[in-house]
């Protein structure tokens, strides 16, 4: 027994430690606890590069915050097999989500870099799975993916919920910068480049985008889901935005 000095980069998997920091203190975890506001956590991540070989699982009322003056990097391991590197509501094997998506409250991610480039672009990888509802935000987050015409990666994946707010995102590469569907959301200052499709709007009731900067994508914004027979997208507002070098701005049915 003793104390020893190690260098973490590429040596230790930091995901267990980060998950311990989130779950410590008998907090409200997925599948076993509907909600709790008496066990909040501010989980601070100092500057550094953290190797992530297992998904980071959010608990109820968690704020994951990096140092904005030197944003920590969560670097996906090449063998990270997960729906997403950060999962706000993981799916169990029987398909049950951690929480009902309309009860995914009081969570946030701030000041972080997520690097998925170690993953093969043809093998599944997503930065953040965020089927979120009220009092939630993702802010000042960069997500890096490899540029590849056959990529299956997505920076942010949202398939459900009743949010929400995101701002100040910088996403590059992948199949989708964002692949997102939710009742409503407000999103501002999002930069997406070198994705096959910048933003894929899976479904919504209403969604406001202010200050998109999308460049070098095949399609900047796709809302074709459901086809002509059952349009899944209710309404989209895009203002104060700049689309550059994307052959198609908006792909509609």
């Amino acid at each position: 027994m003793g104390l020893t000095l190690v260098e973490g980069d590429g040596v230790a998997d930091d995901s267990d430690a980060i998950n311990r920091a989130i779950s410590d203190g008998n907090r409200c975890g997925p599948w076993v606890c509907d909600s709790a506001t008496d066990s909040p956590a501010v989980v601070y991540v100092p500057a550094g590069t953290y190797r992530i070989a297992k998904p980071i699982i959010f608990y109820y009322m968690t704020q994951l915050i990096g140092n904005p003056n030197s944003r920590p990097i969560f670097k996906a391991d090449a063998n990270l097999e997960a729906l997403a590197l950060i999962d706000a509501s993981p799916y169990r094997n029987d398909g049950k989500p951690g929480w009902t998506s309309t009860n995914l409250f009081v969570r946030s991610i701030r000041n972080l870099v997520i690097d998925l480039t170690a993953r093969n672009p043809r093998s599944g990888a997503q930065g953040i799975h965020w089927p979120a509802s009220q009092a939630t935000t993702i802010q000042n987050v960069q997500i890096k993916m490899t540029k590849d015409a056959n990529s299956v990666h997505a920076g942010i994946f949202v398939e459900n919920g009743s949010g929400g707010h995101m701002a100040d995102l910088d996403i590059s590469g992948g199949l989708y910068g964002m692949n997102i569907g939710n009742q409503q959301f407000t999103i501002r200052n999002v930069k997406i480049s070198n994705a096959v499709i910048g933003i894929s709007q899976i479904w919504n009731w209403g969604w406001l985008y202010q200050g998109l900067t999308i460049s070098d994508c095949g399609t900047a914004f796709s809302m074709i889901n459901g086809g002509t027979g059952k349009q899944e997208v209710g309404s989209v507002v895009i203002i104060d935005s700049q689309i550059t070098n994307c052959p198609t701005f908006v792909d509609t049915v």
Partner: protein
Amino acid sequence: MSGKWLPGGCSSLPSIQWQRRYKHSTLLVLLSPSNPLLSAGTFPLAALVLPRAYLPHTLGFKHTFENMWLHSLTLCLLAVSTRQAVAQDNTVPQGTTLTTVVISEPTSDLRADATDPPYWLKDIQKQGIAAFNPNPQGYKVFRNVKDYGAIGKFLAWICVK
């Protein structure tokens, strides 16, 4: 700096208060009130200068838990054998060898953590509690992932069997 996840019954870890990397060495300032490697004397704070080449993997060791005791032992011997070489000034020139150890009271300069820039959220005194938690005095609202064993790319201490 303690928790049930620590293996082998270690109850505390020294924290790196400050570090600076030189071309051939790394200066670490460790705050380790209960560190068996460094607290045999009366010094609450110690600084070790390690050659970059010391890092276990550069010596050909694999990073396995089985051989970690070797590195612990080496560091322990280093600390003991060089404790005599006390220097009052904290400047460390390039090329400083393994035998240099600086032991002094912490100065404000040394308290700064060069690896993680200042940020009000982590730097402010934490005095709030989760008032409605069943154990408000024991429950931690603010957690630093490094207190739970996350290492990041920087040097860190881990406790091994």
